[in-house]
């Protein structure tokens, strides 16, 4: 009779224990960032792997979302006879919401999963233990550069996404639907506040980047050391990080209006 209750309890304890370990891990990664030697080379490499190699994806997705947004918002706005506000609507929705969130989800799929898989397979093939035996801390050598890389690239890629989104909507609004180019841009410029919108958008994207860096590296670091474990960890990174990004988005928007 007590079986299910006991199992539920055990599950809850395991979850809480997992969260505790994850928090300790975050502390270790944070401390590793402050500890010499500074691994600039490895951080640059991680930025390249997760950032530069995602540029094409982000540009293409940003432009596509911009195109769709241009069409949809034009359709909506024209019902109120407010087509001229297309610049405002596109700009604000991309900057405040869609840019950071969609970039977060895309980077999770493209670079977060790759970070998990890489760290996980290093664990499975005893490369992390090999580092330990050479008295090199794998958190400092492997994990920290990748986590930092993800955190750094997220706001940059989000800005790129937004730029291409605005460009896509411009193409639809001005070149296809025949709005006035000047009014599209000046409406956009007037509506967007640097502190309120742009900075906060970057803050949001940075939060997503830190979340993703944390989750992706933790999943890899804690995965079971075999092929199945690595693939499970990779899937779990995509699911967990995506959900966390969406939740964090709500929390940030609701509490701080970011």
């Amino acid at each position, binding site marked *: 009779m007590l079986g299910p209750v006991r199992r539920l309890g055990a599950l809850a304890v395991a979850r809480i224990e997992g969260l505790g370990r994850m928090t300790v891990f975050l502390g270790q990664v944070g401390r590793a960032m402050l500890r010499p030697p500074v691994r600039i080379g490895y951080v640059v490499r991680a930025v390249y792997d997760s950032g530069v190699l995602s540029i094409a994806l982000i540009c293409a997705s940003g432009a596509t979302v911009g195109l769709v947004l241009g069409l949809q918002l034009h359709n909506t706005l024209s019902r109120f006879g407010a087509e001229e506000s297309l610049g405002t609507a596109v700009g604000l929705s991309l900057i405040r919401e869609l840019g950071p969130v969609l970039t977060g989800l895309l980077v999770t799929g493209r670079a977060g999963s790759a970070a998990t898989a890489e760290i996980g397979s290093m664990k499975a093939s005893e490369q992390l233990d090999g580092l*330990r035996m*050479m008295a090199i801390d794998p958190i400092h050598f492997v994990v920290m550069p990748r986590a930092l890389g993800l955190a750094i690239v997220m706001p940059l890629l989000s800005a790129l996404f937004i730029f291409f989104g605005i460009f896509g909507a411009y193409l639809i609004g001005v070149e296809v639907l025949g709005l006035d180019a000047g009014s599209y841009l000046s409406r956009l410029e007037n509506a967007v506040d640097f502190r309120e919108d742009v900075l906060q958008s970057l803050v949001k994207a940075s939060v997503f980047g830190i979340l993703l860096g944390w989750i992706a590296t933790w999943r890899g670091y804690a995965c079971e050391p075999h092929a199945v474990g690595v693939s499970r960890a990779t899937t779990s990174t995509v699911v967990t990080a995506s959900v966390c990004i969406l939740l964090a988005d709500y929390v940030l928007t609701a509490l701080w209006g970011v």
Partner: protein
Amino acid sequence: MSGTAKLRPLPGEFNPLVIRAEAEVAHVELCDVDLAFGRRVVFEGLTCRFPRGRISVIMGGSGLGKSTILRMIGGLQPPDRGRVLVSGQDTVGLGESAMAQVRRKLGMLFQNGALLDSMTVFENVALPLREHTRLCADEIAHQVHDRLQAVGLPDVDDLLPGELSGGMLRRAAFARAIVMAPEILLCDEPFSGLDPPNVSRIEVLLQHLNRALGLTLIVTSHHMATSLRMAEQLLLLQDRSVVSGAPAELAASRESAIAEFIGEDGAEFLARHLESSPQGSKP
């Protein structure tokens, strides 16, 4: 770290029949260790000691826990109970940074090499030097090439581990394990997957390291002939426990499990080997 290269006199009159491992100073010691993975009990009350400056070979069937013993010594696998002493220091429960200090005395060759995939062979071997010494690039290159030469891999600098064969991989990993001149070298199956010339190359190299630098060697191996030839102390793993002694003692043992493991071939080989080199001197 280079201070570890203490020269000790060559044990010229060394005779494996006389050596009593128990009488010597233990460099590494496992005391009353229990270890289980879930319900699978691997060790129960395991006690064994590895004398300083000697070659100890751990033998035993697959899955009996040879690699696990090395992992426990390296602090990668904490025992459930018991003590693991390295140079007299109990390493169980040490934090990562304290353990890192202990590991600076240790070198380890992993069963599958464990080289970093993303770095070339040269960078892999150079890594410990770059991390822990202030040597200049030339000096590092010199040392790395020296070690790679010693394991018979003269021109693989720019290859990635994925581009090496299995045997080359283990030799490259071996070069990395010895590049810092550790006091204690843990080798997990150094001979498996090697062709006969390379087996003897590694054997000679191990013995040289042991003789010239006084390295304490702890080797696991299935390679009967080489093990019997090299070992100053032989540890035979049995289910959950261990029997240890000089090879000749074990070979003379009447206990059925030991005789069975060493086998007639092994006993015969050992008898011949001891006969042909009455001083127990080695190549």
